[in-house]
């Protein structure tokens, strides 16, 4: 349309710009007026504390969750279980409920035109909605962290065994826990951005609402089932929810942590940019936006797959990681270190002996399945022999056997196979009675991106 040369009367002015701050506040008011959002925030602030206290008091612990088997020993384990569970299941659900609904709710209510007339700037609406979504997410995440910590403190602030079984003081555990929560923000941003994109693409369709949850589930399943190279696995946002595990080894495994966080931020930036472009190109004269699968594939899935491939390529190029990231060398090294730490604990409890890791000179030898099977990759068929020098006995060497169940993300569970007096039985006799045998079963972690 061509503009006419008519001179406007002095009192007529162009519509005033509504600042992003005002639109943001408007969006926040709308979001916080929703009961489901209020309930979700309340759950985040109350639920973890109750869960940690209740579960820690149960006879059966969630030992399949990282740090779950330590929940009796220290409250910090409970706080970490909350983070593990949130990363695997709750964050994708949280972003579904909040981010994936923020644009589509206007489609369902038929309020786009009202909003556009009031604000007169689709760009500002997009920015404000994005910021309001982030704000609500940031009301939830600290709640989960603080609530989990409070629950843990109620259970008991005692030293926590890290993923190489070295003991962390409560202060160290608290510091690493807070750092781990900060690390989890990067993948959460990625899922939130996927939610925003789904919300823009699918409009009124409920598919958009479920997409972040399905994406999270799909990534988890793909990570566990598909034989992916480590670089490809690390480039998935779902991996970054677990990569904080590397903080709990000494030295910390920062490679996977940083790579996962950077890849997640790349996902977040791409998905947000795509959502912005699609939103700015939308024709608001049509009320009905039920989304289209074709557009979801071309404007959503394919570009994000591109980010995944590109991130994986960069990770592989920078780290040199090509295979699964799990091999006998890494497992042997990790298992030997963990065993030494725990043997020291056991010696103190049972024999009141103060031995050092240096005296033990522990080593391990691991094999996977039969000789016909490739000696790398995840699986529950890893069998390891651990050797150590018996302190105080000249040239005497001890030997213990472990079965290792190694997950694709590098975490493993070492299950002691004997001898009984070392790691074959779940309790040990101490001067103050029977106590859990620290060498019987424990968690460990290998760095997928490290080279042996």
């Amino acid at each position, binding site marked *: 349309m061509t503009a006419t040369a008519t001179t406007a009367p002095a009192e*007529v002015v162009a519509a005033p710009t509504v600042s992003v701050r005002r639109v943001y506040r408007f969006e926040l008011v709308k979001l916080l007026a929703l009961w489901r959002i209020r309930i979700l925030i309340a759950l985040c602030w109350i639920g973890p504390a109750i869960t940690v206290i209740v579960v820690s008091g149960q006879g059966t612990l969630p030992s399949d969750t990282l740090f779950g088997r330590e929940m009796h020993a220290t409250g910090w384990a409970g706080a970490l279980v909350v983070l593990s569970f949130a990363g695997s299941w709750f964050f994708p659900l949280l972003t579904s409920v909040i981010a994936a609904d923020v644009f589509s709710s206007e489609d369902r209510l038929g309020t786009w035109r009202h909003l556009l007339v009031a604000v007169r700037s689709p760009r500002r609406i997009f920015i404000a909605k994005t910021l309001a979504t982030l704000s609500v997410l940031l009301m939830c995440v600290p709640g989960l962290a603080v609530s989990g910590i409070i629950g843990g403190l109620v259970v008991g602030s005692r030293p926590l065994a890290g993923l190489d079984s070295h003991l962390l003081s409560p202060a160290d555990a608290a510091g690493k826990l807070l750092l781990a929560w900060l690390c989890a923000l990067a993948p959460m941003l990625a899922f939130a951005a996927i939610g925003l994109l789904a919300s823009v693409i699918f409009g009124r369709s409920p598919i958009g609402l479920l997409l972040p949850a399905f994406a999270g589930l799909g990534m988890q399943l793909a990570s566990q089932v598909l034989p992916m190279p480590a670089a490809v696995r690390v480039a998935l946002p779902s991996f970054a929810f677990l990569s904080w595990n590397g903080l709990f080894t000494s030295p910390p495994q920062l490679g996977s942590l940083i790579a996962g966080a950077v890849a997640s931020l790349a996902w977040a930036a791409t998905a947000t940019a795509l959502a912005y472009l699609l939103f700015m190109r939308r024709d608001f004269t049509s009320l009905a936006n039920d989304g289209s699968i074709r557009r979801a594939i071309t404007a959503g899935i394919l570009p994000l797959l591109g980010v995944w491939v590109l991130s994986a390529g960069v990770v592989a190029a920078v780290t040199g990681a090509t295979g699964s990231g799990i091999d006998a060398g890494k497992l042997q090294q990790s298992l030997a270190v963990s065993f030494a730490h725990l043997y020291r604990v056991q010696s103190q409890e049972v024999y009141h002996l103060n031995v050092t890791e240096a005296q033990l000179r522990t080593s391990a030898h691991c094999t996977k399945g039969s000789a016909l099977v490739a000696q790398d990759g995840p699986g529950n068929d890893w069998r390891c022999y651990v050797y150590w020098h018996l302190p105080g006995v000249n040239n005497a060497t001890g030997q213990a056997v472990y079965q290792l169940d190694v997950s694709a993300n590098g975490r493993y569970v070492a299950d002691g196979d004997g001898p009984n007096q070392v790691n074959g039985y779940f309790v040990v006799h101490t001067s103050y009675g029977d106590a859990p045998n620290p060498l019987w079963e424990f968690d460990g972690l290998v760095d997928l991106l490290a080279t042996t």
Partner: protein
Amino acid sequence: MLTEDIVSRSRTVRARGVTKCFGDVVALDGVDLDVAAGQIHGIVGPNGAGKTTLLGLLLGLAVGDGGTLEILGMPVGRALAAPDGVAGFVDGPGLYPSLTARGNLAALAALRGPGAPAMGIDEVLGQVGLTDVADDKVRGFSLGMRQRLGLAAALLTKPRLLVLDEPANGLDPAGKRHVHNTLARLAADGATVILSSHRMDDLAAMCSEVTILSAGRVVFSGPLNKLAGENRELDYLLRTSDTDAARLVAAETDGISVVDGAGTQPDPEVIVVRALVSGLDELVPRLVRADIAVRELTPVVSPLETAFLALTEEHERESSR
């Protein structure tokens, strides 16, 4: 001075050759429109005529593909924005069900900021008759209450041009009165109201001028009386003190034809005659002279509706040729 005033009045809305297409569909095809300040202007047309598209352009929800559009004297360019002082809604008011009526308006007022011209929330709620339910969640509102709250939201901004799509939808008689009075008061204060409706009686009651759209084109634009006064015969219900005698008088009057058969009318005291306005001018004195009291003389279908049907059907016939 007079010239300036005329120019100013012509500047509320001025559209020349406005065209808007959605793919292959031509929604507006060279639309011309002039709406003066202080006028309540009706937009009518069959479904798909382009009414909502035109209202959307006025609200700044879309931009035309061709032609020129001035709103409140400001040329509207390609950007999605109308000048300040334009408010309203199309396809129903945009309300948030989780907020109260007052909450919806408060959020909207906060959006505009303290410097913007605005009416008080209680004031606008009172104007549309929603004071009693101001603190109720909109989730439980009826369609009519939502329409009134949508109008209140538009009034909150002290609009100089109010654009409303089917504002009378779902309104009960009391609600309709509130809306009619509010719009009349607004127009009396110098604001312009442009509304669409399928209810011809509503438009006839409120509007001073109408524009009839058919298939994206303007087929009539002007004062209602001009439309009603077009040289077109209408059917009128005639109720008198003596039906049989009135029937005889009507049959003998030039320009009048009785269209109902005796006894076929549901109400035996009513006859239906077909006539031009000039024919009625002849009939009524003759009935009076024959000592027949005229108790009711009303069009069977409103002149606006008759004209609307005739014009749109005629345009559709021409388009299909």
